[in-house]
Structures are given as C-alpha cells and as structure tokens.
C-alpha cells in the first residue's frame, strides 16, 4: 500500500497558508510565534501510522516525486534539433559538488547512441609500434584509477557575451557537471601501442554518427587523460558515452569524446570541424583563437538566483555557489552583495580539488534590501575570475566560448531575482 502525504485538502490548505505567510518579510517576527498548534505535530500523520514502500519497490530508484523540478532543461531556440543540441544541469537546486548523473547536462552532436559492451571496440592506430584493437573487457584489465573532475562545455555562459540574457544559473552556467570517474590512464593504452617519437598529437573520435573528432597534444594525453567507464560509482549513462568516454581534466567538454572508438597518434593536428569551425574564439578584430582548450577559473552563485529566490524574508540567508578552474584547485571565493563594491571571502565547504568543483557558502544576515550578488573565484595559480567587461575589453563580444566572467544576480526586496549586468 502506498499512502502519500498531503492527500486531504485540509492539510494542503494549511500548508499553502504557511508557505504564503513565510514569503512576507513583515511576518517574519510574528511567524516565530505560532497562533495555533501545528497539526503536522499534533495530529498523527498517515506516514506515522501506515507503513511505506517495501524494499524492491524501485530496484533502481529515482528522486522522490517532490523533487520533480530538479531536471535538465534545454533552451529550444539555441539549436535546430535536439539530436544535435545541449541541455543544462539544474545547478540552482543541487548542493555539494557531485552532479547526479541523471540530471548532468547532455551535449550530443548526433544523438545519444546505444552501444552495448559486447559491441564495443577501441582502436589505436597511426604513429605507434603496434596498431591495436581493444574490447571493453580488455579495458577492465588495465590498472585502474579514479578522479573527480568537472566537465564544462566551452560554450557555458556563451549566450551572455553580448549581455544578460537568461534568467537562472541553470541556463547561464548549467553546461557543466562534476563526477567521480573510474577508468584507466590513457598513457597506459598508449604505452601498450608504443608511441613513436614523431607522434606529437592524438586524434580521438567517437562511435556515433558525428564522430566528434578532436586533436589533443601528446603531452596532455600522457599526463592526466583517462578512458573512463564508470561515473559516480556506476556505469556511464548512455547520454554520457556508455560504455567508455574520454576524460580530459580541466579542458573543454568537447574534447571529452563519448563512445570513444578510435585514438590515432599523429604528427600534427587533424584540424577537424570541431576544432576549426567550432570551438574557436573570434576576437573583436575578426582574428580567432584556436586550441583554447583550458577552462579558466569561474564561479557562480547558484542560490539565491532567478530560479530560486529568497522565500523566508530578512535574517539568516545561505548564499551558496560553485567554483572551478581548469588550471588547478580553487583556493578562494569572494562574494559581493553590492555589485562588486565590497567583497567578503566565502567559506569553502572542502579544500579545493584540482580541476574539480568546489562548493562555497557565505553565511549572510540579509537586511531585506536589494542585493547585487556576485562571486569571484581564485585558483592556485593566482588567477582571479575577471568581470565580463574585463573579458570584453580583450576579446570583444563575438567569442561564443570561454565566457568565465563574473555573474550578477539582482535580488529584489521581495526575494525574487534577475540576471543583470552592472557598471
């Protein structure tokens, strides 16, 4: 038997009334005193009388239905077709640093394919001593490693280059996820094949129809790149490249080739479609940067923000967000409530981890007045996240990619919020 709470209209009415009163700032003090005993306490609730679900009700569970708004969302006008498109992680409603796979953003160039482990083949060819083919089972026999890394699309915040455009951290900063990967070092696979001295690059491609080929310098390939088959403890989700994908720590997500099927060792870059016509950054003078692989330090206040306003009125307020850098660990995050006039150093929930997300908190006493909320990340190299205008001064407004400028949320007196830019 399944008994859901809130099934009587009387209870629903009472709960709605409580929520409404809490949204009024003037009622905050009064709300601390209770006019009548709380029926949620004084009346025996269904869940306190009747049993809940038995084990095995959901052999693989989804989040409880109350959390049904914590989902990936897409911006339909961005792309022509969902087959070659992107959606956004609901970072505004998540906390901690690990992104649940089920709501971690997806980016496909020709749809998420189904590739079974028995059908999986990985080829290494080109400038190697031994051109090889591996099965999925072969991959599981290599020495294994794990690591937590963020994967950020180079176009994250790309819609904001010309100005504030989308209302919500999910949409402005949600082309990112952060998972714990298990896999094998790419250098172990390359050693198996034996890279020839003239091999200076690798060209990696996926098994899907787009292939999404990218060139990566051999130094990076031999450093920290992984071929991953597990994320957050379980097999990669279909949409994240099951059964094996590339993990390229700190570098733009387009290089993290999913459904990895081939690694070619080459003398020079292939200059594929994804590294010439796309994922290149056009400057104001029309010249474009290429090979802009590294994701620079960036942060965003995830809440409060336009999709998650303040509902409790003045007083204690948790300001929280995420920070990350492709060049190392986050060492500090500063938060401003006045649009960058003054800054306070926020609390890092845990010490920064290189090329992984860091959670920050600022424990704030909100006076109920308007705020212009910003965060500013600093990484272990000493790099300080710049303002959007500082980036525009160097790059102009046509870069599309690599917008790591400081985000501003205008928090209004009623607790609602809007994406704005400030002087």
């Amino acid at each position, binding site marked *: 038997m399944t008994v859901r709470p809130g099934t009587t209209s009387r209870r629903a009415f009472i709960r709605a009334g409580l929520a409404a009163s809490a*949204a009024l700032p003037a009622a905050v003090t009064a709300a601390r005193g209770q006019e009548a005993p709380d029926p949620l306490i004084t009346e025996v609730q269904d869940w306190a009388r009747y049993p809940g679900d038995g084990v095995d009700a959901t052999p693989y569970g989804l989040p409880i239905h109350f959390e049904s*708004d914590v989902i990936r969302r897409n911006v339909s*006008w961005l792309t*022509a077709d969902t087959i070659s498109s992107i959606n956004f992680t609901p970072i505004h409603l998540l906390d901690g640093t690990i992104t649940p796979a089920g709501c971690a953003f997806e980016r496909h160039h*020709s749809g998420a394919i189904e590739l079974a482990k028995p059908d999986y083949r990985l080829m*290494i*060819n080109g400038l190697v001593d031994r*051109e090889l*083919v*591996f099965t999925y089972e*072969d991959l599981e026999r*290599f020495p294994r*490693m*794990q690591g937590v890394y963020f994967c950020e699309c180079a176009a994250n915040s790309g819609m904001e280059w010309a100005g*504030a*455009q989308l*209302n919500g951290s999910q949409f402005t900063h949600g082309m990112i996820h952060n998972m714990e990967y298990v896999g*094998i*070092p790419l*250098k*172990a696979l390359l*050693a*198996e094949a*034996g890279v020839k001295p003239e091999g200076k690059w690798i*060209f990696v*491609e996926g098994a899907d*129809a*787009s292939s999404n080929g990218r060139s990566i310098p051999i130094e990076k390939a031999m450093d920290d790149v992984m071929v991953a088959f597990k994320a957050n403890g379980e097999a990669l989700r279909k949409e994240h490249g099951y059964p094996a994908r590339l993990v390229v720590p700190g570098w733009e997500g387009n290089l993290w080739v999913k459904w990895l099927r081939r690694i*070619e060792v080459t003398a020079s870059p292939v*200059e*594929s*479609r994804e590294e*010439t*016509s796309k994922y290149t950054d*056009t400057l104001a*003078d*029309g010249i*474009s*940067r*290429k090979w*802009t692989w590294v994701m*620079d330090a960036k942060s965003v206040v995830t809440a409060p923000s*336009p999709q998650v306003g*303040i509902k409790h009125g003045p007083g204690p307020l948790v300001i929280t967000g995420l920070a990350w850098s492709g060049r190392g660990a986050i060492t500090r995050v500063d938060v401003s409530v006045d649009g960058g*006039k*003054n800054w306070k150093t926020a609390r890092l929930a845990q010490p920064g981890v290189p090329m992984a997300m860091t959670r920050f908190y600022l424990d704030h006493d909100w006076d109920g007045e308007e705020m212009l909320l910003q965060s500013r990340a600093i990484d272990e*190299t*000493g*790099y*300080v*996240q*710049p303002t959007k205008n*500082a980036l525009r001064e160097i790059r102009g407004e*046509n870069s599309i990619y690599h917008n790591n400028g400081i985000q501003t949320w*205008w928090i209004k007196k009623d*607790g609602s*919020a809007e*994406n704005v830019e*400030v*002087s």
Partner: protein
Amino acid sequence: MLKSRKAAALLIALAATPVAAQTPDAPADGTPAAIQPLGLGRPAMAEEIAAWDLDVSPDGTGLPEGSGDVMTGEEVYIEQCAACHGDFAEGLDNWPSLAGGEGTLDRADPEKTIGSYWPYLSTVWDYVHHSMPFGNAQVLTADETYAITAYLLYSNSIVEYDFVLSKDNFAEVQMPNAEGFIEDDRPQSEYPIFSAEPCMEGCKDKVEITMHASVLDVTPGGEDAVE
C-alpha cells in the same frame, strides 16, 4: 612515456626485481604506477584500420583517390544537403549556412561559413564524408564527397563552375580565412592581467544596473521568479 623498446625492457626488468614488486613506485595521487605493455588487445587488421581511419588532414593526408565537379556536386547537394542547408548553402532556420558571410568576422554577430571562416578545405571533405548527411552519415562515396566539396567552394565564389576537385589539386585550393587564426594566447594576453591581487573594499564609487535579462525575456519555462 617510453621512448624505446629498450626503455620498456628496462622497466619490465626493474619491475621483476623483488624490491620493485614489493614497493611499487605508486604516485601519491593514486594513479597506477606501471606504464608498460601488458599484452592486452590484439593487432588491428589493415581492413579494420581502413574502415575507421577516415580523417583527412590539412595537407591532404588521408584523402582517397577520386574526383568530382561542381555540376555533379550541385546535384548531389540538392538531394542530400539542401533540405537543411538551403539550395544555395545559405542555411535554413537554425541549420548552418555554408556560404556567404565574407567580411563579417569583425562585426557584431559574424556569419561564419566555409567561405568566410573555415581555414582548411580538408575539414570540409572530412566532415561531409564522415558525419554528413545529418541523420544518415557515411553514405557518400569519395567521388560524391569531392563533388559536394567542389560545389561548396563554388557557392562561396572560391572556384569557377567548371572546377573539378581531386586528390591531386586538393592542396592548391586556398581558403579565404586560412590566416585568420592564432594559437591560444591567454597565457600572454590575459593571465598576467587577471592575476593581480583583488580589491576587497571600496572597489567602485557607484554601481548601476546596465542591462536586464528580462528585457530580452528569452528564458524558457517561465519559472524565473518567486511568485
């Protein structure tokens, strides 16, 4: 990285000694220590490599034998490509335009096409052959791909209508924006500027809102505010 078989043999010999076996040289970060061939996998066959190694490099490496002319390319293009990219490669709806846009790269909203932006012709051939048509990839023959590529060059006024593209003259085609790219220069142009000690107090005299997202109102879902 192993530079030679000799180095590999040395590593294997070291690993076989009792000391090395008992105290493997494991890095503190938990990554596996041993980088030496384990004898996993099997040799790739020539037919397998030929089936998957399709990429074409800027110097033409990887191009198969074959050729195609603009007129044939136009026919194949109309049949295979025009539904998304338009009869004249101008692009339909949100699908990319493949022609035009010359001289727009330094303006607001540059129009990036094969003619205005792509630095290498090899990229066109490679992508058309491997990844197009969208939804039905890898059906175009080498000759059809040469022909479509020739038509796209014609659409961008880079060649004349009687042009025939082949493996032999491929490298002679110069793309208009070939010199339009520089390598990532952030380490020189940005990192020094963005590594100054940040201001903490009184960093600005005044702060004004200069732009609102609600002016554009393009956020999906209508869930953008507290009710």
